[in-house]
């Protein structure tokens, strides 16, 4: 009896292991679809080593999980949109989720290389050093790092950075906030005190300031990208200080709900957060990562050459790598004239207007940019990290 039980257990566990395998372990040699995908016909294989859309292998190292309905969801959505666009078969794509910077990232990148990835993508700023190291050690594999800032200086032919100019959409969402606020105090739930985050909330504030010269803003940092409870607590603390529009650089919609419960307003991020707090969310600035992924994979396969540093921008009609969700359609949520004000500013920004144009002073009164002086970034990852006049960071 006991023996039979043991045998049964062994058989069952083997069966289970066999069932679980295909999702976990790297898939065996991909069988390219017979027709080679829709786009393969239009783009003849010309890349190095006879790469085609039917045989290229792509690996993605994500910092989170698409279930966050925010950053990683949008990143993964970019992948699936790109696959549809170029006719890439799911067998040709290997995803790693919930990979924080550190040893886990090294392992995931190595697994991707051993699986035979031609292009390895990583999505979090902290993945940078791991990607750079792998690029040095594996010159035959190409690496693409979103939000990073190491590629230009590294000067490796197989290491690339890409990002979207989120400041543009943040500036426009700031206009909605500046017109909406009644207390003239904004609050911002900020992730880490990194340049990317500071650039983002500065753009948001500048947008509000452009339509409301009396507006000021409080900022509190979380020291995390994603911590729903902390996001809610900070939002409440900001509202307690008098803020009546809450912006965020955080991954979850929990601050938006706090705004709704307090009868104030908010601006989302990464996902269209209006359904999460229909009475509070004015608008959400968002990324369309498929914009870059389609470009990169297409260029790589057709001529083997992708720009070392890529910055995507807003384009007319909300088609760019960065865009603004639709305004909240519920009556009385967005202030009157918001759509017109945003449309006017959007036109100027798409035409090339720099949001970071002087005079700009920091919050101690020092002049950062003189009248008419423009702040230009040397690469896709932003580096602005001054706290400008009107913003108070609460530590």
């Amino acid at each position, binding site marked *: 009896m006991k023996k039979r039980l043991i045998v049964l257990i062994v058989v069952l566990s083997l069966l289970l292991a066999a069932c679980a395998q295909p999702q976990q372990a790297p898939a065996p040699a991909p069988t390219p679809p017979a027709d080679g995908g829709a786009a393969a016909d239009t783009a003849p294989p010309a890349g190095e080593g006879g790469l085609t859309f039917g045989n290229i292998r792509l690996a993605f190292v994500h910092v989170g999980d698409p279930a966050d309905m925010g950053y990683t969801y949008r990143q993964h959505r970019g992948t699936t949109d790109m696959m549809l666009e170029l006719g890439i078969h799911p067998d040709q794509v290997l995803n790693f989720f919930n990979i924080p910077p550190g040893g886990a990232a090294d392992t995931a990148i190595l697994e991707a290389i051993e699986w035979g990835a031609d292009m390895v993508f990583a999505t979090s700023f902290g993945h940078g050093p791991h990607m750079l190291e792998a690029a040095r050690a594996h010159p035959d594999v190409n690496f693409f790092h979103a939000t990073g800032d190491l590629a230009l200086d590294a000067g490796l032919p197989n290491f690339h950075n890409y990002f979207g100019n989120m400041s543009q959409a943040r500036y426009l969402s700031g206009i909605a906030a500046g017109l909406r606020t009644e207390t003239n105090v904004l609050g911002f739930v900020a992730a880490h005190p990194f340049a990317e985050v500071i650039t983002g909330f500065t753009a948001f504030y500048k947008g509000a300031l452009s339509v409301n010269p009396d507006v000021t803003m409080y900022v509190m940092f979380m020291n995390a990208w994603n911590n729903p409870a902390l996001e809610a607590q900070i939002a409440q*603390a900001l509202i307690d200080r008098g803020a009546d529009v809450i912006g965020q650089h955080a991954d979850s919609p*929990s601050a938006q709900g706090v705004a709704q419960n307090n009868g104030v307003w908010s601006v989302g991020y990464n*996902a269209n957060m209006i359904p999460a707090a229909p009475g509070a969310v004015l608008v959400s600035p968002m990324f369309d990562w498929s914009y870059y992924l389609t470009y990169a994979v297409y260029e790589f396969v057709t001529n083997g050459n992708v720009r070392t540093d890529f910055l995507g921008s807003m384009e007319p009609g909300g088609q760019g790598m960065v865009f603004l969700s639709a305004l909240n359609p519920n009556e009385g949520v967005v202030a009157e004239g918001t759509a017109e004000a945003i449309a006017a500013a959007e036109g100027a920004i798409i035409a090339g207007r720099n949001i970071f144009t002087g005079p700009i002073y920091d919050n101690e009164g020092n002049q950062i940019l003189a009248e008419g002086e423009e702040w230009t970034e040397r690469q896709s990852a932003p580096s602005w990290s001054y706290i400008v006049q009107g913003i108070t960071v609460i530590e």
Partner: protein
Amino acid sequence: MDIFINFFNAAVLAGTPLLFGTLGEILTEKSGNLNLGVEGMMFMGAVSGLAAVFLLEVGLGIEIAGALAVLIAIAGAFIAGALGAFIYSVLVVSLRTQQNVTGLALTIFGIGFGNFFGEYFGRTSPIGFMTVSLSARQGFSNLSIPVLSDIPILGPLLFSYNILVYLAVVIAVAMAFFLSRTRWGLNLRAVGENPATADAASINVTRYKYLATCIGGGICGIGGMYISMVTTSGVWVHNSVQGFGWIAVALVIFATWSPKRALVGSLVFGGLTVMRFYVPLGIPMQIYDTFPFLATILVLIVTSIRQIKEHSPPAQLGINYFREER
């Protein structure tokens, strides 16, 4: 004064999910079961409480009124938390597996359970989020009690919270009464202190362990539901419970296994976690984040120096009971 009231309110709101978790774990540990699966049970409660209201609303195509939504969510969360604890009880009490390992396994299971169903229902939802109607959310908003809420200072300080805060306080008081003033409470404590003696006194050790663990798990589940319904305002957020369960386990020690002290402990812990947003001390924020844990260490040191019997854990905590080894 306003700042103090806001700080106190935020401390209570931050402390309430911890209080539920702590109370549930105190009841569990009083039976001698060290269930480290609090985090898992809170996740299960968080997703189930929310899902119960969500599924009813979607399935019937209606908006559930606030008070009813509260009852449905409490029931859903309690059942899910108790179910997690039931799995633990079967393994630990009946099959006598090692308690720490089983509790950790329950944590891993519960986190997966919560995030899986949260994601699943979010994907099936027509709007992309697993969320409940505004009328259901109304049930979890702050109460405005006639007369009481209008008292200056005391009103906002004591009578301005959502219904679950008061439920937690009622459970704490009831549990304190149960443990120290009723025969069943005495029996339960006997089971935790010395199950062999309790057994000899014809107390059904197995039944007490099962019931205390499952009810305790249910209370933990309500704590999880507090996070999904109040903290994140009735929207499922991936990984929303994130560590609350572990702090609750630490708080049990902080409260020295007393429901009354758990009230104070959760308020202090809640206060220390939100302190940096309300009390500027001009120190780096990372130092603020250590305060709750420094407080735990301090309490551990003080209680171990004072050596008061009342403050010590149940004698047989974490040890399985074999009748044959008596």
